[in-house]
């Protein structure tokens, strides 16, 4: 609906005659609302199947995911495949229907988050258990290849100073905190199964409230944590900020968060030959690699292509 707001705003500022304005707004609103009335407002409905000899590689609107997608793309190209890159598609709810419709063939995914998207009541467990559950939960037209050791998952994160002050190691130890514990992050964090409600129900941890910071664990979130405007947030474990801003991701022995190993999600068009290329990457990609890839992007401002090419050259897989 952001579209409708923008549209309304532009019309109001245009300062046409009042009657014209009112009728234009009314028509515009009617059109916008009719568009919203049914169906998925985010679905493009295109679902065009990619050309037979080309593999379409997609990525989330997340810089780290784009780097992995670029590694997949360059590796496939080095092995004789033609690749069509459609990066930065958006979040899972946007691209998953595209994959199912055959519009995208290869997508870097994360085991736990993908499982929860497909199966909201998934049990969870160890990283291997999640991988097995995920394979069972996928629709018939899609499959996941081998998972990498590299993981990039949600975590409850505090500053190192805060952790030392209250002797924090795992999530349960947040009970030691005696000052008001303000949680901050994207507004979904408030309602997620691992959110503040789970902290209270599972560990009896009281939180002081919730501050929305909608940049998804980005620089604003990190700054709020470092400034002590919030004390607890969700940062992805492969974020280079954890090292550079002296943060601590609290360990999660009870698997409150689902393990999120990097895994290629592929369509039926991916042949065994292409699959073996991607599996070689998964076998080589470690969490340390992922953190340093992310750091090259965030701290050194290098492009995804350059970072991917450098990693592939160093890994020397092909």
């Amino acid at each position: 609906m952001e579209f409708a707001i923008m549209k309304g705003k532009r019309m109001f500022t245009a300062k046409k005659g009042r009657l014209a304005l009112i009728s234009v707004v009314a028509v515009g609103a009617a059109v916008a609302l009719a568009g919203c009335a049914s169906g998925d407002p985010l679905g493009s409905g295109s679902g065009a199947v990619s050309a037979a000899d080309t593999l379409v590689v997609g990525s989330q609107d997340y810089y780290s995911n784009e780097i992995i997608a670029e590694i997949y793309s360059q590796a496939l190209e080095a092995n004789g495949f033609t690749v069509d890159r459609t990066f930065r598609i958006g979040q899972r709810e946007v691209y998953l229907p595209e994959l199912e419709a055959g519009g995208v063939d290869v997508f870097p995914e994360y085991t736990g988050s993908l499982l929860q998207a497909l199966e909201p009541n998934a049990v969870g467990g160890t990283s291997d258990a999640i991988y097995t559950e995920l394979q069972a939960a996928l629709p018939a037209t899609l499959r996941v290849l081998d998972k990498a050791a590299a993981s990039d998952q949600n975590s409850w994160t505090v500053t190192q100073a805060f952790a030392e002050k209250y002797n924090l190691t795992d999530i349960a130890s947040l009970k030691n905190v005696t000052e008001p514990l303000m949680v901050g992050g994207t507004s979904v964090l408030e309602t997620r199964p691992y959110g503040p409600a789970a902290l209270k129900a599972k560990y009896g941890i009281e939180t002081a409230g919730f501050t929305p910071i909608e940049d998804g664990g980005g620089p604003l979130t990190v700054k709020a944590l470092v400034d002590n405007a919030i004390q607890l947030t969700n940062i992805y474990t492969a974020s280079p900020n954890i090292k550079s801003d002296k943060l601590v991701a609290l360990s999660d022995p009870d698997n409150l968060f689902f393990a999120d190993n990097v895994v290629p999600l592929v369509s039926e068009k991916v042949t065994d030959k292409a699959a073996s290329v991607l599996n070689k990457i998964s076998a080589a990609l470690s969490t340390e690699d992922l953190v340093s890839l992310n750091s090259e992007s965030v701290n050194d401002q290098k492009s995804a292509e350059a970072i991917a090419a450098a990693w592939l050259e160093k890994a020397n897989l092909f």
Partner: protein
Amino acid sequence: MNYFADAVAWLFDPTNYVGSNAIGNRVLEHLGFTLLTLVFASVIAIPLGFFIGHTGRGRGLAVGTAGAFRSIPTLGLLTLVALSVGIGLTAPYAALTVLAIPPILAGAYTGFEAIDRATIDAARAVGMSAGQIVRKVELPLSLPLLMGGLRSATLQIVATATLAAYVADIGLGRFLFTGLKNLDYAQMLGGSILVILLALLLEGIFTVLQKLVVPRGVAAGRPTDIWAGFTKLAR
């Protein structure tokens, strides 16, 4: 699934009217944020606009700067300010004030500029001082255009104030962000409808205000019956 019906159902769900995230609270927060931003922007833009309009000095600079201000993406500015002052309300107030300054400034100086120079010369001729000219002639005559600027600014703020929820627990934007990330489109659309209703309400108020501030002399100066004067003369 009918999203519009769901959104209406969401709007009328009594459970959405209790607690800190109650619709009533969010509407009031949004309104308060909008009006305070309007005050901030007015305090900067109105005196500046009057100065430019009265003296005719700095017009080119003001037009250029205001034009440049208009093109600043608000979310980018918000993020930039928040990165230096931290999360909370300061960054949204600053970013939205910048958004609201150009229309108010334009309304203020064009209000002065649009006045017929003969009117001002006449005022000077009857012995008014510069201060009197500003107070008794220029200011009242410029009010309708200034009010138009404020009206346009208010609409931009009320629609864009949803961004305040990007870094603070305030306003109707909370419903949009929460709905977007949770795939709760009923909530998103419901929040948007509230923003639209608020915008229409403010627009209505400003339409009335804009009529009220037209000086009596100006309103009476354009008779609809063009023969009325002549008939009087003939008598």
